[in-house]
């Protein structure tokens, strides 16, 4: 176990900066997820940490040691690759034992440690098999066991679940999280799947275009995105963004959106008024009413998608199209009128020019 720290990391390929001045601190025993769309530099950042890429600028520290110039083998870390990278010419046992053998650990200790890791991943019956005789999910388990066996300080994972089918991914996600909690490992996990990030990480570092845009706990990143990119990338459906104008009407703030206007009951918007802003609101933070009323915004139903636990409505309010979730028993007809109550406490205010959050 060890803390990990990055300072001003920069890595370019040709003229393209894959990682552009990243600072990141991961505390001892923490599980941090690097989340971002493909091509945002998250895998490159992980490979920089692993020592598989040389840094162009900046420094990296693992457990207080400066590892910037160290080769991968001297960094005391383990890595799980997207393709698993299980050695095809070795049995499962030899795969898991590989790191220990390189450390010249004594044979009985290796056998013990391999067994322990195999049991953690429930692959103790597969030790004599070759990788070609395993399913994708089993290979994945071998890859994780192999990374755990040498007891590295830090565990790096590069989209480890992305090659599994949906059901297996769901199962493995929970299992992996439980395993890492149990082992109390410092772990850095790369994914483009925001559900995976929200469900697994202690903290999420959202990346875009080579930079870290926001670091925070899953709830903070979900509820209070730092900018429109984070709000639009995290959550399914993504956050709704409406062009809005806050003004003062007889001393109390009023929000004007293209579909209508409503009063802000809470005092939160006072410092904002009067101002043109972007109103960010999650689908579940909008209540849908069947009848008109005060402080409701009129909208037309475009699509109703029943999802079992709730219904997802696509509605048009003025010139904006929104996603709204409603209880499973609420079934408005398409083209019918509904009225939206935008819950003031859940509004995230963002700047129109920069897209960055301005919420008080």
């Amino acid at each position: 176990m060890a803390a990990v720290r990055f300072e001003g990391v920069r890595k370019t390929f040709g003229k393209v900066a894959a990682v552009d001045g990243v600072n990141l601190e991961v505390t001892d025993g923490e599980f941090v997820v690097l989340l971002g769309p493909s091509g945002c530099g998250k895998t490159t950042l992980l490979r920089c940490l692993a020592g598989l890429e040389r840094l162009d600028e900046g420094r990296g520290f693992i457990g207080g040691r400066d590892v910037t110039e160290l080769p991968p083998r001297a960094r005391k870390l383990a890595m799980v690759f997207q393709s698993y990278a299980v050695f095809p010419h070795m049995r499962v046992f030899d795969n898991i034992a590989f790191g220990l053998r390189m450390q010249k650990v004594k044979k009985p200790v290796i056998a013990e440690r391999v067994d322990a890791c195999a049991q953690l991943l429930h692959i103790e019956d597969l030790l004599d098999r070759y990788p070609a005789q395993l399913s994708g999910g089993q290979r994945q388990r071998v890859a994780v066991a192999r990374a755990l066996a040498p007891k590295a300080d830090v565990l790096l994972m590069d989209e480890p679940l992305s090659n599994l089918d949906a059901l297996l991914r769901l199962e493995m996600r929970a299992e992996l999280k439980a395993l890492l909690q149990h082992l109390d490992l410092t772990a850095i996990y790369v994914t483009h799947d925001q559900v995976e990030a929200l469900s697994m990480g202690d903290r999420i570092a959202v990346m875009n275009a080579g930079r870290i845009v926001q670091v925070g706990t899953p709830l903070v990143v979900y509820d209070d995105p730092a900018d429109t990119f984070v709000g639009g990338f995290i959550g399914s459906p993504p956050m709704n963004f409406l062009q809005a104008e806050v003004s003062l009407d007889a001393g109390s703030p009023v929000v004007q959106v293209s579909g209508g206007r409503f009063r802000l009951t809470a005092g939160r918007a006072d410092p904002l008024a009067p101002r043109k802003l972007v109103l960010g609101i999650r689908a579940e933070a909008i209540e849908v009413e069947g009848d008109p009323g005060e402080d409701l915004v009129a909208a037309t139903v475009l699509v109703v998608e029943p999802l079992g636990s709730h219904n997802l409505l696509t509605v048009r309010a003025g010139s904006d199209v929104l996603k709204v979730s409603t209880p499973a028993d609420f079934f408005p007809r398409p083209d019918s009128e509904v009225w939206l109550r935008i819950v003031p406490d859940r509004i995230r205010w963002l700047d129109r020019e920069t897209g960055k959050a301005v919420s008080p």
Partner: protein
Amino acid sequence: MSRGRHRVLPRALLYVAAVLLALWVLAPIYFITIGAFSTSEAVYGYPKQLIPRDVSTETLSFFLHSAGVVDSLKTSVYVAGITIVLALGIGTPAGYALARFAFRAGDAFRLTVVATRAFPIVILSIPLAVMFIRWGLDDTVLGVAIVHTALALPFVVLVTSSVFAGISLELEEAAMTLGCNRAQAVRRIVLPLALPGLAAAAIFTFVVSWNEVFAASILTLQNRTLPAQVLAALDQSSLPYRFAGGFVLLAPSLLVILVIRKYLFNMWGRVVT
């Protein structure tokens, strides 16, 4: 499927051409093989039998007992052996570099490697012979092996680079995160996985050396390889000798091509990493 009907005629022509081409290659091979496995009467007999009546090793054993044949066979094996060691020793690292590292003018280098084969050995042979005589390499096994290495090297480089390109870089990187340096990762992970492909390259090198006749003929007098020996003896030898000699030269190559063809196709499939 109306488009398919329009293509029937060209397709039939294609097949006819393919059959003719195959016959062009296969017919001589067939006759040589029949000749090598029949009695000398049958070899001299006329009209030729399309299906051999009595299979016999008489012709082959006559050939193998002819003067110089066993010695030249040995020489051929030695030359091929040294060629394999040299060509793989030099070519494998080059192939690895081509597969793993993006370097400036990598593609140009690749092309140059192939282009060296376009340079006719006939033109090279005179200066080569002069140089070898100066260095005392003429009429030696090593001298022939060096020339054969030069001939086989382009193929070895390209074949091994395709073999290495087919081995995921992540395997190597995984080994490096697990405590290997680059050399250890190559030795413990890449080489074992590349072994079948390297074996194919070795066998291919063997064929190149085994069948090469020109350089071997020019550079040797006493220590002739088998093709050089057969060529030298051709105009004074009997028909059974020629058939048997032809067969002994032919058979290993055919066998080898059969075994390694999938690697040869691979080579063009993914030259670029």
